[in-house]
């Protein structure tokens, strides 16, 4: 029995040694290793600055590697802005912060054309880019801006371009929008429309740290020193490329599709997630598998990303909300009853 059930390939495993030439697999291995080290270092550096938000940090980094945008929801003072600021320093790219207010105009985000005097003394229109033209953009309290200003972000987030005077201007790469919103102060806010919510790869809930973390935060006499950059933004682009190349088995893709479809069938859901959620699930799964050093997307990766990917894409019924159900409850129930394969 053992003879039949103990398996050998009959050939030497395709591993490399010091003398062997680099093989395709070795190259892949090295690429993955390098990409993973970027992700891990980024996450570890963030953790040294931001205490008690490990899951949020992991989610932010994975969204960054997946090439998506993040919507952070949490009470003031939980470190949302600090996360983005630190991330910008670590990545080494440009950083811009936009404080969304009701009187914020789209031109304040995208930029505006000014009348300037040319060298010949004539007048001309000159485009001055807005804060959106940065590698990392912090859209602070995005729900305080008017829908018109919020929608100005739509094209930028989805197409990674800005149309100025009918001409598309590409945004820098990498381009990462991290928006925050305050769930407490609902007076004078403009809830984000579903179309814009769908542009965010994930929505992360920043929660209050626990007692031990708070004590550690309090023990800090002063804010930690700003971190030194880990590399260039191109390294992040490289990691994003490696993540995108990670394959997923059909049953994993089917599992993700089942999850997305299940949001429509749930009794508490007024509407469910769309195909973009499917893409988001797989992208997050790839990023997570890269962070874990795996060459394939696992079901666990998809399941782990499901909550942050689906929670802002599921519209709840009033009856369900009255019963105290949330989108997270719906996603948890879907995860519990969805089988693999």
């Amino acid at each position, binding site marked *: 029995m053992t003879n039949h*059930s*103990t398996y050998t*390939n009959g050939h030497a495993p395709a591993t490399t040694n010091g003398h062997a*030439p680099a093989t395709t697999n070795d190259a892949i291995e090295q690429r993955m290793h390098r990409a993973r080290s970027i992700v891990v270092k980024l996450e570890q550096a963030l953790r040294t600055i931001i205490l008690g938000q490990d899951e949020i940090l992991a989610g932010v980094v994975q969204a960054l590697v997946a090439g998506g945008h993040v919507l952070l929801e949490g009470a003031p003072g939980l470190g949302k802005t600090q996360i983005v600021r630190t991330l910008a320093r670590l990545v080494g790219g440009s950083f811009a912060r936009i404080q969304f207010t009701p009187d914020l105009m789209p031109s304040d985000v995208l930029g505006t054309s000014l009348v300037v005097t040319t060298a010949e003394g004539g007048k001309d229109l000159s485009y001055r880019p807005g804060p959106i033209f940065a590698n990392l953009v912090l859209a602070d309290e995005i729900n305080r801006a008017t829908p018109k200003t919020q929608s100005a972000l739509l094209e930028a987030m989805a197409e990674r371009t800005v149309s100025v005077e009918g001409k598309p201007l590409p945004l820098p790469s990498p381009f990462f929008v991290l928006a925050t919103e305050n769930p407490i102060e609902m007076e004078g806010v403009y809830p984000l429309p579903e179309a814009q919510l769908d542009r965010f790869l994930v929505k992360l809930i920043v929660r209050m740290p626990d007692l031990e973390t708070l004590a550690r935060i309090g023990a800090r006499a002063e804010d930690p020193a700003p971190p030194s950059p880990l590399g260039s933004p191109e390294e992040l682009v490289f990691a994003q490329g490696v993540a995108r190349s990670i394959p997923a088995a059909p049953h994993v893709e089917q599992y993700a599709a089942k999850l997305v479809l299940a949001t429509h069938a749930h009794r508490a859901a007024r509407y469910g997630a769309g195909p973009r959620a499917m893409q988001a699930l797989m992208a997050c799964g790839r990023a997570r598998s890269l962070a874990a050093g795996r060459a394939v997307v696992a079901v666990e990766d998809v399941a782990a990303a499901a909550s942050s990917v689906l929670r802002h894409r599921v519209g709840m019924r009033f009856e369900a909300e009255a019963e105290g159900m949330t989108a997270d409850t719906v996603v948890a129930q879907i995860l519990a009853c969805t089988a693999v394969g």
Partner: protein
Amino acid sequence: MRGEADAAADDLASGDPGRPSTRRDRGDEAPGSAPTGIASAAPLAGVVASARARLGRLAVRAETGRHAALLCAAAAAFGVARPLVWPLRDGEPWEALARALVLGAAGASAALAIVIARAWRSRPSTLASARRLDGALGLAEVVASGYAFERDGRDDEMARFAVERARRAVVGVSVERVLVSAPRARTTAESRWLFAAAAAAVLGIGVGALDRVVVERALRPVTTREASAAAELKKAADEAAANVARDDAKDEKGADVVAAARRASDAARRGDRRGALSALDDMRAASRALEADERAQARALRSLRDELEGSARPRGAGDRAGAEGARGPTRPSATAAEALAGLRRDLAAAGTDGEAVRGMLERLERAEAAARAAAERSARADGAGRRERSGEDGAGRRTPAGEDGARAPSAGAARREAWSRVAAALAEAREAKARGDGDAAKRAMERAERELSKLEEASRGASARDALARLADGASELDRSMHAALRGDPSGGRARGDDAGDLRAAGAEDAPGAGTSRSTSKASGDPSGAAGAGPGGSERRAGSEARRVRTGGGLQARAEVREGERAAGVIEGMGRGGDPRAYRELFPSYDTIVEDGLREDTVPAARRPTVRRYFSSIRPGDDGDRQGP
């Protein structure tokens, strides 16, 4: 397959980016190989298949343990159903326990088969098995994804990398060691259920092992006398069977008697008194049918003899058989064959005496009619018997059990043919004599004589009758011993019967209790009140006894009481309103005894017709109204 795998592995390990990684890429794919881009051989498929089989076995084991209570319940249900599903019938009492155990095991096996089939069918799919293998190895989707890529023939770089990683992960892996059943402790409720089910199984098999015979045997064990009587009956049945076979009569009714006797003996030996009594009833019924046949045959032979002798018809004025030859012989013949021989001689001696010849031809014609009538009766009786034995129901439908009986040639058919041959021979003789062909008439009559001799020989069948009589005696003894055992009398009432017999032997006619088994059994509370089985169904002693029989009219006659106490009881009872059915059952035995006695020349030839007329006059009628003297 191994070569394909090696080639694929070499391709993967070559590391040459420009080199096609598989034979398919190189364009030299082996004919008939699987159209996969990775390798024709699929090492992961093998390990996944093994993992699936292993998981199936584990699932079977787990499900069997989980449904142990169900298996016990099935065993209990099947064990309890033993009396309905597999009744004991002719089996030994200990077979009830064996059968209950077998049924219980069968039930548990059936339930186990269902559990196993369901568990096996619900075993994980290959992909799920690969995922379970991942889980057991502490991997996250490595083997499962690699297996999926390998199965789907994914040819991209990362997929090949994933497959290679998966293959490396399973190198040296023993699925038997990796995939083990999770330890699972039974809950208290489960343990209680299992205990209850096990107890139910034991109880069910125990209840299934309880048979009526077992209970009866436990309450009233088989007495020594019952065992002895059963053995005697068995021996008598064997002797009777040998006689029936030796006579080559193929008499189904005789075989029925023997079979019923054997059943009764076996049942009594097992302690199945109800079954034994039922078999004895069957035996009595078969005996009555057999006797009815014998009686009919004897009557037919007598009738033929009387017609041949010319004594059957009253001599009226219109009877012109005034001549000596036409009136019949001066000395009556004992048998029909003798009568025919006498007629043949008379016919030869008559010469040209037309009147005498005409008278004798008329006797021949009447004898022929009698033979034909006998043939028709035999045919009717044979048809009825065949229908009864073939299992036809009232609507004429045939049951499968009766196929053999319907096909086998019966004694009735042989008898009918014999009678037909006699009739044909007599007709031929008559016609030949009418033509004046004396030789042909003589030959035909001799042929008829031979046929009649055979019929008479078969009718006499003394040895078979004796065997059947012994069978009846044995049955009677068994009947009494069983009733005595049911009453709680281990002696079986033998002492009482012996005392009565002694008293009768001493001439004490009025001795109480000197009755038949019927009267005795009734007087002593015999629940069945059954008489001894068969003719003279009573205790038979060695040799005949001379007893003084008192008839109803005060006439006392010394008689050979061959048929035992029952005969005496029946005759005694006739004068005070006895049971006419018992008389009808008893009389056929006298019929044959009379014929035997007349044949032995102990009765003067001149008195034989008188004796015959006497017994004809006391013959019970078919309507049951006529009784004995």
